[in-house]
């Protein structure tokens, strides 16, 4: 593992040790229930030791990423949903780890067993094991390399053979064909994959569009032509979608026995030395940014997973989690503070919408509280790509209003016991998952 670190990161192990003195590992890093801690305060831990588990259909175990002892188990800021119970581990400065079981030619059962234990989570939050064992027949494994944050961080030339290995393991586990999805404009990536394939039965398909993890259903639809309802997953179309990160984690877990304890993170934007870092899970954003030379000027916004669809962070104390691929820092001047104007019905949002809805219209209805109309206009089909908001000439907060309407609709039908208006409990919708922090005002591009 140290070797791996050396390849991606020009730091000496000693330096790397310094910035991971303390890690905060959230017990929720996937879609599903929060894991139960398996350890207690003051316990000593080794790298790779399992520290959290839950018994649910959607389960992803949590492992310790450093060796040291636990100083607390408490609620800490989480990068995608305000505060979640986390395990705080302080390093003891050694590299002691559990015995990682390596395997060169794993059987199908072995793959399933290791994946169940390793708790690999795809970038959209779904555990890989869960997708493999859902009772649906999977005939294609797609590895999506069009998500810019993920492709930048993980598709380095060293990693491509490993990604192919991981993909083959997934193909073996599900008896499926393999296809790489690469953006048309990214010719370099396609050719470097093609040269590493050596005649394996894996296709490369070029697409015009970049697919973010939330657009997995759309990707499956575009590849197979099967329409998938927004309540279903790509598995319903016989497709399993993995990312470069997911394939890499699978190959590491199965072949080297290492559960996901590190992620490759691109630190970009207003930092002194933008680079791809390999950081332990649980490292705070502050430390990750520090290892890229620190802030350039005063930071105005810290964004996880891409400037177009990522989540802005309220603090830089939040930890790096399994699905973190990019940390972008914006300086204060770069922060968008446009004032929304009236909709001029130019239809630019309609032109860019990947799922064929009318984003501007939905936003206008959401603005006046007509959530019923939003529902009729298919607000639930939205995949949160943020393109409509990006192109809007009137700077309307289309994505925020769409999320607002969606949460309002969910709460309208879900809170029978509370007698107050559901409008009062709506948050700012900045996070990926709705929270109960009690923010009552809608922050529209302003400060916190």
């Amino acid at each position: 593992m140290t070797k791996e670190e050396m390849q991606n990161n020009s730091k000496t192990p000693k330096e790397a040790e310094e910035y991971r003195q303390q890690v905060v590992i959230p017990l929720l890093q996937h879609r599903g229930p929060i894991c139960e801690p398996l350890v207690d305060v003051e316990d000593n831990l080794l790298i790779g030791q399992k520290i959290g588990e839950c018994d649910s259909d959607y389960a992803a175990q949590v492992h310790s990423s450093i060796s040291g002892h636990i100083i607390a188990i408490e609620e800490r800021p989480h990068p995608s949903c305000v505060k979640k119970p986390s395990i705080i581990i302080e390093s003891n400065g050694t590299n002691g780890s559990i015995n990682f079981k390596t395997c060169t030619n794993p059987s199908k059962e072995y793959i399933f067993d290791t994946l169940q234990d390793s708790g690999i989570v795809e970038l959209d939050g779904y555990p890989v094991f869960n997708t493999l064992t859902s009772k649906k027949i999977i005939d294609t494994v797609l590895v999506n390399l069009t998500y810019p944050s993920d492709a930048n961080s993980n598709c380095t030339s060293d990693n491509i053979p490993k990604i192919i290995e991981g993909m083959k393991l997934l193909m073996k586990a599900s008896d499926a064909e393999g296809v790489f999805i690469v953006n048309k404009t990214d010719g370099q990536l396609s050719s470097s994959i093609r040269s590493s394939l050596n005649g394996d039965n894996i296709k490369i398909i070029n697409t015009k569009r970049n697919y973010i993890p939330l657009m997995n259903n759309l990707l499956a639809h575009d590849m197979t032509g099967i329409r998938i309802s927004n309540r279903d997953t790509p598995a319903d179309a016989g497709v399993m979608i993995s990312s470069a990160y997911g394939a890499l984690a699978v190959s590491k877990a199965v072949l080297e026995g290492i559960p996901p304890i590190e992620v490759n993170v691109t630190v970009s934007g207003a930092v002194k030395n933008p680079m791809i870092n390999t950081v332990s899970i649980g490292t705070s954003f502050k430390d990750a940014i520090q290892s890229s030379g620190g802030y350039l000027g005063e930071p105005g916004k810290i964004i996880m997973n891409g400037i177009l669809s990522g989540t802005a962070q309220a603090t830089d104390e939040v930890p790096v989690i399994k699905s973190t691929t990019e940390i972008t820092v914006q300086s204060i001047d770069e922060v968008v503070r446009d004032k929304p104007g009236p909709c001029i019905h130019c239809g630019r949002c309609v032109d860019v919408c990947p799922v064929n809805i009318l984003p501007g219209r939905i936003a206008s209805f959401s603005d006046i509280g007509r959530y019923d109309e939003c529902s009729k206009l298919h607000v639930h089909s939205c995949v949160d790509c943020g393109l409509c908001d990006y192109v809007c000439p009137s700077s309307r907060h289309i994505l925020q209003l769409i999320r607002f309407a969606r949460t309002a609709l969910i709460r309208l039908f879900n809170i029978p016991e509370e007698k107050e208006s559901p409008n009062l409990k709506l948050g700012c919708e900045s996070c990926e998952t709705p929270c109960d922090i009690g923010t009552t005002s809608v922050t529209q591009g302003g400060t916190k």
Partner: protein
Amino acid sequence: MKLSVSNPPHIKQGVTVKTIMWSKIAILVAVGLMAVFVFGLSALAMILVSTISAVLTEAGIQKMTKQELTIKDGDAVSIGILIALLLPSTVPLWIPAIGAFFGVALVKHAFGGLGSTLFNPAIAAWVFMNMSWGALTKVSSVSHIGSASYNILFLGKYSDIIFESGAGMLAEVSSFILVIGGLYLIYKKYIDWRIPSSFVVTTVVMALLLGEDLSYVITGMLFLGVFILATETATSPITKNGRFIYGLLCGVLTIMYGFISSNYVVAVLYAVFFANAVAPFIEKNTSPKPVDEVAL
């Protein structure tokens, strides 16, 4: 350290309403300058009076209703210039002044201001002026430049495309500028390509089918209609298919009016005007089907 939290996206493309409006105004100004060259200073006076009237009307209304002043977004300016461009150079100056007032006050602001208009303010104002003072706005002016001296590139009767010598209204002086400008707007994606393409194709195909002389059909006004008037955002449908149908309807109405009255200039304006009226219905019936909608 104070961090901002907001929803994605955390970046904007940088194309604003202002950018779109002022690019359109740049094209209209180019056409206006050409008109001044052809018709003389009376054209300049008309454009100035109309623009000033439109801007003052907007400022007055926004002051009275205590709204934020939005002169800078350029909508009032573009309405003002357009109204002047839709008139012949012989009209008395009070007509564009009243027309601009009507367009901005009653067609734009009475219906909710920018983005909420039912009809294109410039066309509605033109219809109002034409109805009220038909004799004064009648196109009778003939360019003071002889057509023979401007037979550019020996294109024969088609030289009018570059430099219309027999223009009636100010806007008709140069199809060429409008086409270049319109294509630039499409290239920059400031206007949609669907409406112009289906409008032009429908008009030309129908004219050929009916055996009309294309030099009558293809006028400066047609291109003003195609690139500037029909693509006015608030009055055209937002759905993709709707925009095709809207352009098609504009084309059909142009040919219908023009074939019967043999006045293809006025035909474009009435065609867009009536297409505006049905645009909401087109939009309603062409709602796209979302990708994830599963057939029951």
